[in-house]
């Protein structure tokens, strides 16, 4: 991994840098598997190696491919980095040893999650229990972050006038694989429904196996993006409108929030799923399914939204010059 990163430092070709970053993401994901963090590995693989690589590629395509060779003030930078690094190394000396069971991190709060979560929440995946219930508010914050990013990208990159109605011969259509790669098209036509199905499986099976709303959302979005790449952006956008995606993203946040509000109207505190049904454990279960649905909805729509907004940019930039200011 260090090798890959060192290569990234030296490379000037941004395209290769992005590819290497993708590899780095995959390596990280496999490291997470070795560390028994399957849920995180799943997410890192889809985000680090998937979505962020994709976004970077789109951005490179929209800007410039080569890095300018001049590198300035490397000595100051080196100094700052060495000081910070030395401080961190200094800090590691008093750390509990790697992997030992009596480290404070394992013995205090985490004990209860491992021992009692099955009785209190009734699902075997502890990560999901903690994520959705014990620390459900963090996850709510996370959904809001991704929603914020979606709105922020729209605010920056969406273009005056919108896309509706105008049909343009775009870069993507000319170069879409629709014409050139018949085999690819047919294979993926068959594949896309399966990807979407798999996303739904991950969505609703998160309590038992790794996965959940976030990962499902990413996979679903990946399916839609694949569709857009194969059949051209404007074809895809005739079926999936940015305006709808925007509302879907908002709806996801609202579903999550509504679960919280309902639970305090029922006499619990915010996001206390136990009061949703008479049986607290069943209530927890219903609550988790609902909020995971909210998460999945927001994530899928925001990621698709961000991709479309980025991809639209170039075409419209040529037509409208700038943002219209």
């Amino acid at each position, binding site marked *: 991994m260090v090798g890959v990163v060192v290569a990234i430092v030296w490379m000037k070709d941004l395209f290769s840098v992005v590819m290497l970053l993708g590899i780095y993401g995959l390596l990280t994901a496999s490291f997470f598997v070795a560390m028994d963090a399957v849920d995180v590995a799943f997410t890192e693989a889809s985000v680090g190696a998937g979505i962020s690589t994709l976004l970077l590629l789109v951005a490179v395509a929209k800007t410039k491919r080569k*890095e300018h060779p001049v590198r300035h003030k490397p000595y100051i930078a080196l100094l700052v980095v060495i000081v910070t690094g030395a401080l961190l190394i200094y800090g590691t000396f008093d750390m509990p040893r790697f992997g030992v069971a009596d480290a404070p991190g394992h013995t205090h709060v985490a004990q209860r999650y491992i021992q009692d979560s099955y009785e209190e929440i009734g699902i075997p995946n502890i990560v999901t229990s903690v994520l959705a219930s014990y620390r459900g508010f963090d996850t709510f914050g996370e959904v809001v972050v991704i929603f914020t990013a979606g709105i922020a990208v729209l605010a920056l990159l969406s273009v005056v006038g919108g896309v509706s109605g105008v049909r343009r011969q775009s870069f993507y259509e000319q170069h879409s694989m629709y014409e050139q790669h018949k085999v690819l098209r047919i294979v993926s036509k068959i594949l896309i429904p399966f990807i979407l199905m798999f996303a739904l499986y991950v969505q609703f099976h998160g309590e038992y196996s790794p996965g959940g709303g976030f990962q499902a959302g990413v996979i679903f979005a990946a399916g839609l993006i694949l569709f857009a790449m194969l059949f051209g952006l404007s074809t895809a956008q005739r079926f999936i409108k940015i305006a709808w995606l925007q509302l879907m993203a908002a709806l996801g946040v609202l579903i999550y929030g509504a679960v919280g509000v309902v639970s305090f109207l029922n006499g619990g505190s915010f996001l206390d799923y136990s009061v949703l049904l008479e049986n607290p454990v069943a209530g927890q279960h219903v609550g988790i399914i609902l909020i995971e649905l909210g998460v999945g909805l927001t994530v899928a729509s925001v990621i698709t939204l961000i991709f479309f907004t980025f991809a639209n940019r170039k075409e419209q930039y040529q037509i409208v010059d700038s943002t219209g200011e």
Partner: protein
Amino acid sequence: MLIGHYNYWVVVALMMLGFFIIIAHGNLIKKIVGLTIFQTSVFIFYISVAKLDGGTAPILAEGFTDYANPLPHVLILTAIVVGIATTALGLALTVRINEAYGSIEEEFIEKQDNQSC
């Protein structure tokens, strides 16, 4: 001692490489790549903290009593999402900057700004 902390040292090395890219490079996309590496290495640190020798993935199953610590996993799931959100916004800004300045190199942008000031 050495083996006990080896993992953390690798993390520190990765972190600092990422950090170096952010500070020393003038290319805006490269900076964001550096940011991603920096953040990812922090994730690796958290996950290393969660590891338990002889433990297994934190999904309850018969026959296992030792599990990796689920809490850092949860935190990092959240942090990954935050990271991608930041990346997306940073790239959106980069695209706009490229349109407005015709460059994604820090120096050229600063030069243009100084002229217009």
